[in-house]
């Protein structure tokens, strides 16, 4: 397991950075009053 992390730590760090960055961008660009219609995803 230790070997696994040390071998792929760069890729794991890159992945986590990308995921955090994309989440922040998503939150930033979707902030503000509701723009969309009442669309529901479950029913």
């Amino acid at each position, binding site marked *: 397991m230790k070997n696994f992390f040390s071998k*792929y730590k760069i*890729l*794991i760090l890159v*992945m*986590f950075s990308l*995921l955090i960055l994309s*989440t922040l961008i*998503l*939150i930033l*660009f*979707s902030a*503000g*009053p*509701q*723009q*969309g*219609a*009442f*669309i*529901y*995803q*479950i*029913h």
Partner: protein
Amino acid sequence: MIKIRFPFKYLLVVVFSILIFLLVGEVLIRLYLHSRIIYDIEMSRYSMAAKADSPNSKIEHVHKPNVRGKFMGVHLRTNSDGLRDDEYPVGKTGKYRIIFLGDSLTLGWGVEEKDTFEKILESKLNQIRPTEILNFGIGNFNTEQEVNLFLEKGLKYEPDQAVLFYFINDAEPTPKKSKLWFLGYSQIITFYWSRMHAVINRFVPSTSFGGYYSNLYREDQPGWTQTMESFSALKKICAERSIKLQVVLLPELHYLKEYPFKKEYQQVSALLAALGIEHLDLTPFFKNIENPMELWVAKDDAHPNAKAHRLIAEDSFDMLSKPLQGKA
């Protein structure tokens, strides 16, 4: 032993990282939601906790009976018949009985039960004569679902009057349950879904609420055809049973001064007039509201709040009370 080939190892690491990220995100968002409310997540929680499939494909979903929960910051309960209301016996009771048909606006989404226009009107109408109003509002209903719920569950209460509260999205086709419905259990996935929708709605004009709603009313749209047929069926069944039928058109609360759906509501009004159904469009009553957001449940939720419910009750009272006073 099978040796995993080079690219698959990297793919596995990528998938593993995403899964761990989502897992951590799920924990964090659940902690965040202890003190904050996100509309889409609340709607998803309501769907998972309070809705059940209906065997009738024209109804698609109903409320579960005896639900107790808190959604969008307010308490929501259902009675043994799945109505957000008190228990009512079937058949005549000696009181004047009205059934309110509608969607999440009639349900009173984001508003405590005592502050809904249904309860305010019940209290006001009781000053004229003993009256009980049954709230048949269910989130995400369209006209076809409302009418079929009335046929399936409403008639047994033998109402004297039925009022359908119409909203701009009621001409949507009857929804089908998503094959990915189980994703609603994950609040982080619901969160990403909701944020992506918000971004798309903001930057792609054809998906904005204005274009989306207007498109529903094109003559070739199946939802609009369904709506016309449903109103016609409702008119017929009410006429056969001497039930007074009325329709109230509720305003969409984004732009009230220059209402963007005048043409669509005129189209609905013309249909109702042709069918001989008494109706009232409330949008003119709201045109002097300076800041529409003061009527919203939250800034990410344009459902009417308690103040808007009070206005709806005040503005529709005259028409709704006429049959009780023997004026209709």
